């Protein structure tokens, strides 16, 4: 089956000029934890997650700490970067898949790259949806 038949047809995305505060609001309101970042043409230029924001506020946080001991420190660091553009914190090398690829290629890519979802693009590289692990699992039942 083709990816375009399985994907979640959602175009929720961030722009590179969006601020960290606006992104946190988007995550909070939508319930999403990561979104693709697209340019004016709708082409993917990055992907950004909650984890990228935490790491942006506290570089090395996930490597050094195993538990949170002081929320005020994270809060202070977040306030310092809240007006920064998200383009400074996004991952620019995006693992994505074309809508006409098949489900096996998508599943293999997800396993090899250890990702939970893949932005789906058309032949012109324009974002047309997201393929999540659950989209594949649901189809296998």
């Amino acid at each position, binding site marked *: 089956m083709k990816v375009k038949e399985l994907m*979640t047809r959602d*175009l929720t995305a961030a722009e590179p000029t969006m601020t960290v505060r606006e992104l946190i609001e988007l995550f909070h*309101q939508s319930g999403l934890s990561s979104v693709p970042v697209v340019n004016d*043409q*709708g082409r993917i230029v990055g992907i950004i997650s909650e984890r990228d924001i935490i790491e942006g506020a506290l570089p090395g946080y996930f490597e050094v700490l195993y538990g949170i001991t002081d929320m005020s420190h994270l809060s202070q660091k977040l306030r310092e970067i809240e007006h920064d553009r998200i383009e400074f914190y996004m991952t620019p090398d995006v693992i994505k898949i074309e809508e006409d690829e098949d489900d096996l290629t998508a599943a293999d890519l997800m396993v090899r790259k250890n990702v939970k979802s893949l932005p789906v693009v058309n032949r012109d590289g324009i974002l047309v949806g997201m393929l999540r692990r659950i989209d594949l699992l649901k189809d296998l039942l």
Partner: protein
Amino acid sequence: MIITVTPNPAIDKIYWIERLCLDDGEVPVMRATRSYLTAGGKGINVSIFLARLGIENIAMGFIAGETGRAVERRVRDEGITTSFIWVEGETRTNVTLLEHGHESRPIQITEQGPTVSPDALKRFIAHYKRALQRARYIFLGGSLPPGVPETFYQELTHLAHARRVPVIVNAAGEALTHALSEKPWLVKPDTRQRPLGTPEEILRTGREWIAGGIGAVLVSHHITHDVFITPQGAWDLEACDVQFKNLLGAEDALIAGTLSATAQGAPVEEAVRWGMAAATACAESEELVVTDRQRIEQALTKVHVYQL
């Protein structure tokens, strides 16, 4: 690709009741014989109709809260691509009561909708401009939530025209008046609360709009009548012997049917007749959206067209 914009989507909850009892001295408790829940709003209804006919489309608008999530899920379940902007608050829940024997006069309670911030508006425009690059037609319809300026449809029409994409506007009041200045391809005034007057007055207004550069005007002036005006002429479309079951969504089916037939290459005069049949099939069904071709073709036999 067709883009539909619903600035103020809703969850529509419909109750069928035997008798509407609001007598003095009673505490009215009305038990529904049936109920139905769906994602709604003009653009969303048009999107659902198109998707069920296999026509790819993107639904855009502002959503919020748990009701917004429910709207998004139901729209996606129809195979529609979603590109909503999330805002604070809660998407509307609109309630409709259909009393047995009075189905052509639904009672509706509608909410105002969440407030849209200037930042959310800015983000919507960015999403809309991206979507325009893939658009063949744009549908703009329905009320505007708090925070969205009355010039919203005018701006969206202007942006679409800059990319030579035809626009259909289905709105009322100031939002419609502003949009008219951009001369959309097809205008369907929402006359539910602001009727345009007698058929003669509708014809006069419609002809003025056409003279001003609008491509076509479609106006409902009776439950079963619509006036259609283009630079080539004017027609009265009448649906005869309609057995009303649910009038909700019929107007959206009229537009969606017209749009789907146009997108498939039909001349606009023929497309409107198909749209009228789609609206009739919807009105004769309890479902909000009917796309069964056989039922629409049966309804087509009830649609009569008279040149004005």
